[in-house]
Every structure is written in structure tokens, then in C-alpha cells.
């Protein structure tokens, strides 16, 4: 158990750069890093952009999950034909539930994680350029 993270107030005051590397900010030329660290209006736009991209990606993955898995119970309910067709002696509906869904989750998760890392990478390049 930890005492909880320290208050995040005042983080913007802390010097975000290591001492030796700090560039002297010239008026009008400010890096995205400074904008973010100082919480300016531009920083707000950068952060909201990152957050929105991540949320869209997650919702897209959720829609894929819903389309594959979420509709399955109602589809099996409305189409009893799944129970009459036999595969290796067992009803097809049973096979669909037991076997292909679990690998499908892994595939959705894997693709999502790759894309989410790419989003982070793009943001990193934006800040570090």
C-alpha cells in the first residue's frame, strides 16, 4: 500500500527539462513540450487531441468486439438453425461459443495495442521535435 501519488498540483511549475538542456524560450517560438508542461491553451489542444485519438481507437476496437461477440447471443437466440447443424456430432452453436471467440479477443487486443503504441509514438515525436 502506498501513500498515494503526491498531489499533481504544481507539477507545471517544476522545470520539465533536465537543467543542462533547457532552451531559453524565445518569445513566439515555443515547443509543444513547453505548451504542455505549462498548461497553456495550445498545450490543452495537444492533450485533448491525444486523448481523443486514443478514445476513438478504443471505441473502434469496442465496436469490432461488439460486432463479433456482442451480437452472438442474440444471433444464436434468433437463429435456431445453429443448433440443428452438427459439426463432428456437436451442435454448431456450441462450437461457435467454445472455440473461435477466445482467439478473436486476442487478435482484437493485439491489433489495438499496436495501434495505441503508434499513437503514443506519434505524440512523442510531436513533443520531441
Amino acid at each position: 500500500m502506498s501513500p498515494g501519488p503526491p498531489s499533481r498540483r504544481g507539477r507545471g511549475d517544476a522545470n520539465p527539462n533536465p537543467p543542462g538542456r533547457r532552451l531559453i524560450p524565445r518569445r513566439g517560438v515555443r515547443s509543444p513540450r513547453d505548451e504542455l508542461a505549462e498548461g497553456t491553451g495550445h498545450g490543452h489542444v495537444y492533450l485533448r487531441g491525444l486523448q481523443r485519438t486514443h478514445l476513438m481507437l478504443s471505441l473502434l476496437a469496442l465496436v469490432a468486439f461488439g460486432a463479433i461477440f456482442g451480437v452472438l447471443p442474440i444471433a444464436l437466440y434468433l437463429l435456431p438453425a445453429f443448433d440443428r447443424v452438427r459439426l463432428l456430432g456437436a451442435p454448431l452453436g456450441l462450437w461457435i461459443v467454445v472455440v473461435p471467440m477466445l482467439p478473436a479477443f486476442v487478435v482484437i487486443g493485439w491489433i489495438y495495442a499496436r495501434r495505441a503504441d503508434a499513437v503514443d509514438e506519434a505524440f512523442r515525436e510531436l513533443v520531441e521535435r
Partner: protein
Amino acid sequence: MIVALFAVGAVTLGTLGLGTWGLRFARTTSDLLVASRVVTPWWNAAAISGEYLSAASFLGIAGLEMQIGASALWQSLGFTAGYLALLLFVAAPLRRYGSYTIPDFAEARLHSPGLRLLAAAIVLVIAGFYLVPQLKGAGLALNVVVGSPYWVGVAVVAAIVAINVSLGGMRGITYVQAFQFWIKVFAIAVPAIVLLIHFGGLPERAALFGRSLPHAGSTGFTVKLGSPQRAQFPEAGSFSVHGHSVHVKAGGWVTLPAHTPVRIPPRGIVPVASGTQALPGDVWARPVGGTGRGAPVLVYSLLVATFLGTMGLPHVLVRFYTNPDGHAARRTTVRVLGLLSIFYLFPAVYGALGRVLTPQLYMTGQTDDVVLTLPHTAWPGAGGTILTAVTCAGAFAAFLSTSSGLLVSLAGTFSHDVWPRLRHTTPSSPSSRRLHFRLAALGAMVIPGLLALVVRRVDISILVGWAFALAASSFCPMFLLGIWWSRLTARGAAAGMVAGMLVATSAIFAGLAMGEPTGGALALLEQPAIVSVPVAFLTMIGVSSRDPRVVTDVESQMLALHAPEGLGLRLGDDEAEGALA
């Protein structure tokens, strides 16, 4: 069952020994941080899966499958899919934020000490609810291994886990939990595969997928009951006691005597214990439909509870802190999905074989036993005995790892969040804090232990479904809105969690009080998530939008949640380590 006793003893001693020995290397909560430098995502994923796979996965799914058939299998899909929800919305931001526990997150994100106390109270309720089925499984398993009464198993495992946790074992020991995962996979997969080979696939397809109800095999069977049992003959049939045969008409109730052999003739219909369900094969094999628990609305309610509840389980979240950064948290979660997918292929085999080969469990009402008793009952001789020893050892690994993880969360929350607040003192010294933790670990086992004695007749799967429903209707909305919605306020979060918990718990207890809810809207009392989760979300959003007291530093909060590491925008690793040590 000497072999089984030996296997269970080996797993128990091995777990406790490794936990205590591993502790020599790492004493404090920061062992998680230290471990994070060396633990790879694969080890982490195995550890998370090891702590996650509980009595519900190991025993409960197969037991419920015997009763309600293929619709029980949604549970294994939901348990796995929960990690997809965790991956998509919670894993990386929460790791970046750096909160160890749910109360930590609640207080830090919304600046409300009161909310921390509320979250701590909910952690206690959820962890307590989740401990009950673990102890029930322990009671059943010890009964199978040494024939002890139910309460003895509950008491023994509760005592072992409480003493071990209070002495400091099993705390954050990644490698022990990772080994536990592989023990469980071995213990569920190998007997299932060997049995399938031994019987040449699924036997008696007619009984599984045809129109027939569970019936005795070609030689009949004999059962000695521990206590008198009310049972119903779904079709006309007979049983005999001391060679004296009794014929019963269809739908007739009988009371089967205890301590005497009750014999069901060859191919005879099996009487079904009251509170247990037996379905004709074609209904049994249908994943959705039929009556009661197979109804679509209940299936969806269960899926909502498991999909959204996993992220709110207190013992799951703390493990994510072992990941060094958000990127690793994502990679770990994908691996967890893969590892759980291996495990969850197998419980279905036991339920299907059990329907045909151990129909006496319908008569005793102990279908939760099927994973343990199936091998040696269906395959008399050395082979079956060894396989039963293997499944018993796996079941014990499941109880020990999950209940230890839960008890650590319970005791930690009580000693760290609740006790100081009640006494209005800050924890004075590390030694008194450790004493509080130990006392809490011993005390926290009492209520779940007593509850486990009361709910003996309730299926393990139902009990675990409640814990998931509670987590999904309280912590899930707080995480999802807290991470993705900047307008969430402390008052809104508190109101939503209270509303969700109230709806869920009152439905569960109303269902318990009314007895067996069988179908229609009443069945939702058994799994209320599809109602309680939207209530929690809507309350949280509604109250927050009207609340004037917004969180003022929400910009830096969102930066801490969403900005990638290593940009100098967040607390550096060194600083974080210093703050947490």
C-alpha cells in the same frame, strides 16, 4: 485418496514455502517497483492470470454447465473479455497515473478524502463477496479429498490463508503467482485431454445433444448421502434402498435417506436434488434460449458484469503496477488474454463429460464437485485416481492464490484506508501499521468464512457473478469516467457508486430472500448488472454535470493519465520511486 491428499499437500506447502522464501528478497510495497525492472510482460501476464483464475473458473463453470448447459460457457468468455475492456480503456492510463490501489486513484483523481473512504468500503465488500465462493470451493474440495465435513474445509483453508497472509507470505510475489498459473493450466488441461482420449471423445451423444434427461449408465450407480436429500424424479423411475425398490411417477418428490446406499438401476432416470436443475439434452446444448439462466437478457447481464467488472476487482489492479510503463501494461494485458484463452478451453469438457458419466451429482446437488470427482468416478483405477489428485491440486492452487490476493487487498485497505480514518490518527510507525495489517488479515477472514457456511447451496458461479456485478456497478464507471471525462466530480463519483451498489446488492439479497428466481424479470435479481451498471453511469454523469465543485487541476490530471512516459512531462521514474518508497 492418499494420492490426492499428497498432491494437495505438495501444492499448499510449495505455495506457502515459495511465498515466504520469496519474501526474503523483497519486503515492502516497493518490491513491486523493484521487480518491475526485471519482470518481463510474459511473467507479469502469467502472474495476473494466476491470481485471477479462481474457484469460479476451476470448479464453477463446469458445475454450472452440468445444470444449465452451454449457456454457462458465456461465463468463461466474459471472464476473458473483461481483460479486453481493461486493455482498451484502463490499463495504460492507470499505470501512467501511478496509483497502486482503487482508493488511491479515487482520492488522487478527485481530491476527496471522503471518496477514498467510500472506495475503501466498496473494496471491502467486493473482496469479501469474492472470498465466499473461494471458501465454498475449498469446503467441497477437502470433502472430496479426505471426506471431511463441508465446514472443515472452509475453516482449514480460511485459516491457512489468513495466517499466511498475516505472516507476510504471498505479497506481490510475481513468480509464485506465475507458477500457480501453469499449475492450474496443467491441472485442468491434462486430465481433460486424457479423459477425452480414454473415452474416445464425448460419449453418449444422445444424452448430451438428444432429448433425454440425465440417466444412469449401463451398470447403474450407488450413492451414499451425507444428509437426507429432497429430490424430484423428472420422469417416472425408481430407486432402491437395501434391495427394496421404490417406484416414483413423473414429477414425484422423494426424500432420499442419508448414510445408506441408494441405488439407481441401469439406464434409470436420475432424481434431481431440490435447487438443482437438469435439462433435456437438446435444451442443455443450446448456448442461448430455453428458460431461466439461458434467457438472452440474463446472458447479456452476465456479459456486462464480467466485461466491465474485471477492471474493478481490487486484487487484479494492484498487479498492473508491476509493469514498468503504460506500453508494457498494454503488452502484458494482451498476453493475459492469450493465456486465459488457453485455460478457458477446458472447463467445458468437464461439464459435458460429467453430465453423462457422473449423473449422481444431480442427485446430491453438488455439481460444483464435477471437476474433482469426475476422473476417479468415471475411470475407476489408478488412472482416474491420479487425475483426480491432479485436479484437486489445481483447485487448491486456485483457492490459495485468489484468496491470498483478495485478503492482501482486504487487509491492506482496512489497515491503510479505513482504520486510520476511524481512529482519526495517522499510522504512527511502520511496526504498528504492520500490526494493523496482520490483525486485519486475521479478522477479515471471519465474515466471508461464516457467509460461506450459509451459502452452501448457492452455486459458485452465481456467487462470483455477484462480485463481478458489484465491481461493474461501482468502480467501472469511476474508472471509465475518471480517465476519459474531465467533468467528473467527487460528489458525482460518490453518488454513482452508491447508487450502483444499492441497486446491485438489494437485487441480490432480494433474490436470496425470495428463494429460487426461475425466469422472466425476476431472474435478473440473480445477475442485476444490466440494470445496475447503467444506473451507476447515469447517476455519475447527472450529478457531476450539476455539481459546481469541479476538479480544478484537471489539465495536469489528464496529462498524468494520458501522456506517454519519458517526455519529461510527468514525474520521472526516480522521483516516483522516491515518493512511493
